[in-house]
C-alpha cells in the first residue's frame, strides 16, 4: 500500500498556462481550454502526444471529458472528470498523483476553459437550467440569488458570532485589487478603497458587487508528472507536498455551521501529508468567490483562529507589503473568474514559486498553498506546494 506520506512530493507541476482571461468574444469554452492546454504542455517542454492523463470539468457539460479528449486528440489511460465546482482542479491532484505513482499514466493534463462572460449561453442560463437538471427544491422556492445569497448568509452569521464588520470584508477586496494592480493579466486594475467597497451597490446584504467575484472569460491548464521526470524538464518543478479534498454538504441550509467550512478537514489533511504548518507557508492563494471566503478559509486552514479572520486582514495585512501575501494575482475578485476559479489559484501559486510574479513577486517564496472552493461553500480542496528544496 502506498501511503499519503509516501506520495508527498512524488509529483510536480511541470507546466502551466492561462489563456483568454478577461474578455474573449467569439470563442467557445473548448477553444479557450485547448489553447491553455497547448500552452501548458509546451511550457512543460512536452508535446501533446506525451499527455496520457486528463483531468477536466465543466459547469454545464455533464460528459465534458469526452469532447475534450476528442478535441485535443488524446488517448488517455487515466481520466478524471469529477465535478466539484470550483474546487475540482485542485481536487483532481491526489487521484492524479496516485495514477502517476502506479504507472497508470506518465503526464496528466488538468484543464478548464469558460467563455461565460461573452458567450450567449452564460451564467444566467446555467443557473436557470440547473433548476431542472440539479434541483434544490427546499431552497429554490425562496429565490435565493445563488451563489451570492448563500455567501451572504454565511457572512451574516460570521458578523453575528464574531463581530466581523463590512470593513473587514472590504479589506479583502481592497487587498485583492492592490495585488491586481501589479498584475498585467488582471481584469480590474483601477484603484479601489475601503469606502469604494462600502459604497458599492448592495446585492445581498452584507455583500456588495465589490465583495463579489468577477464574471470573466478565461482558461487555465497545468501538467503534472512524476517528480523524477520533472527534474529533466525545462521548468523548475513545483512539487505537490500535500493535498486533500473535503465535502460536508451541498446546500447552504444544510451546512452544519455557517462559519466553519470543510476546509478545516481538507487543510488539516493537506498539511499533515505535507508535514508542514500554516506558519511554513510563504504565499497563499484562496478561492475568493466573495470576500467572506477569504476570512473563512484563513481561519479554517489555520492561518488564524476561528472568528479572527476580520482582525487578521485589517490594515492591509494580506495586501502587498502585508504580513501574509494572499491572492497575489488579484484573485477572483479582481483578476479572473470564469465560473470555476480553483485552477487559477493553483497556477498563480506555481508562478510565484517559480519566481515569475513580476511586480507582484513574493521574494524568496519556497512554499505556497492553493485552495479551491466549490458550490456554495460546499466543496473544499487544498494543495500545499513547494520547490525541490522543501522535499
Amino acid at each position: 500500500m502506498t501511503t499519503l506520506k509516501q506520495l508527498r512530493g512524488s509529483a510536480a507541476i511541470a507546466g502551466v498556462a492561462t489563456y483568454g482571461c478577461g474578455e474573449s468574444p467569439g470563442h467557445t469554452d473548448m477553444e479557450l481550454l485547448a489553447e491553455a492546454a497547448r500552452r501548458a504542455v509546451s511550457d512543460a517542454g512536452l508535446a501533446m502526444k506525451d499527455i496520457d492523463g486528463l483531468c477536466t470539468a465543466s459547469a454545464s457539460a455533464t460528459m465534458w471529458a469526452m469532447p475534450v479528449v476528442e478535441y485535443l486528440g488524446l488517448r488517455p489511460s487515466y481520466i478524471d472528470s469529477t465535478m466539484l465546482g470550483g474546487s475540482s482542479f485542485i481536487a483532481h491532484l491526489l487521484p492524479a498523483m496516485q495514477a502517476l505513482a502506479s504507472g497508470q499514466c506518465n503526464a496528466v493534463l488538468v484543464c478548464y476553459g469558460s467563455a461565460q462572460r461573452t458567450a450567449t449561453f452564460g451564467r444566467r442560463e446555467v443557473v436557470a437550467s440547473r433548476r431542472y437538471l440539479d434541483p434544490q427544491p427546499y431552497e429554490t422556492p425562496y429565490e435565493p440569488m445563488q451563489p451570492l445569497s448563500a455567501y451572504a448568509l454565511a457572512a451574516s452569521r460570521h458578523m453575528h458570532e464574531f463581530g466581523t464588520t463590512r470593513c473587514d470584508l472590504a479589506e479583502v477586496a481592497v487587498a485583492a485589487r492592490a495585488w491586481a494592480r501589479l498584475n498585467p493579466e488582471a481584469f480590474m486594475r483601477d484603484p479601489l478603497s475601503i469606502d469604494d467597497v462600502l459604497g458599492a451597490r448592495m446585492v445581498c446584504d452584507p455583500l456588495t458587487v465589490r465583495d463579489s467575484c468577477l464574471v470573466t472569460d478565461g482558461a487555465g491548464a497545468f501538467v503534472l508528472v512524476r517528480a523524477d521526470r520533472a527534474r529533466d524538464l525545462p521548468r523548475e518543478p513545483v512539487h505537490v507536498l500535500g493535498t486533500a479534498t473535503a465535502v460536508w454538504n451541498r446546500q447552504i441550509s444544510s451546512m452544519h455551521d455557517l462559519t466553519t467550512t470543510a476546509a478545516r478537514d481538507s487543510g488539516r489533511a493537506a498539511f499533515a501529508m505535507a508535514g508542514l504548518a500554516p506558519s511554513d507557508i510563504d504565499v497563499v492563494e484562496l478561492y475568493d468567490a466573495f470576500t467572506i471566503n477569504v476570512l473563512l478559509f484563513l481561519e479554517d486552514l489555520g492561518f488564524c483562529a476561528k472568528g479572527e479572520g476580520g482582525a487578521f486582514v485589517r490594515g492591509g495585512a494580506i495586501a502587498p507589503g502585508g504580513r501574509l501575501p494572499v491572492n497575489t494575482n488579484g484573485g477572483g475578485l479582481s483578476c479572473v473568474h470564469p465560473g470555476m476559479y480553483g485552477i487559477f489559484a493553483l497556477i498563480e501559486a506555481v508562478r510565484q514559486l517559480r519566481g515569475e510574479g513580476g511586480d507582484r513577486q513574493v521574494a524568496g517564496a519556497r512554499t505556497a498553498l492553493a485552495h479551491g472552493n466549490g458550490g456554495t461553500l460546499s466543496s473544499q480542496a487544498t494543495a500545499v506546494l513547494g520547490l525541490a528544496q522543501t522535499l
Partner: protein
Amino acid sequence: MTHSSTTSKPIGTGVLARHQAELDAGRFLIQRCGACQRAVYFPRVLCPHCGAEEPALVAPAGTGAVYAVTTVRRKPEAGGDYNVSIVELDEGVRLMSRVEGMPPADVRIGLRVRARVVVPPGGSGIVVFDAITGDAA
C-alpha cells in the same frame, strides 16, 4: 426467471412527494428518526445521522429563530427587496425560508419566528415564517 423481492410490490410515492402533498394541504412536517431520535430536515429516505431507515414525518412545534439572514436587493418595479433567511427550528433542524410581515432590513439573527404554510392558488405549498411578538416570544 427470477424476480428481485424489491420489485414484487409497489413502493408508493417518495418522501419528497409525500412531504410536498402535506404542504399543499397546509401542513408543515419534518422528520424524526425512530432509531436515534434526532430531527431531520429536509426529508429523505434514510437518517443522515445514523443511517437508519426512513424517519417518520412528524409535526414540529413550528417555532424557531432566525439563524442567518440576507436581503436580496431587487428593483422596486420587479417587486422590491426581499428577505432570505435560514431558520433554526426548536427541534434543532434548519431550513431556508423567508420572514414575512416586516421590512426585510428589520429581520435580525435571533428573531423568534413561527412557521406558516402558504399555498398559492394552483401552486405548491411552501413554509414561511412570521415574527413572534409580545408575550408569545
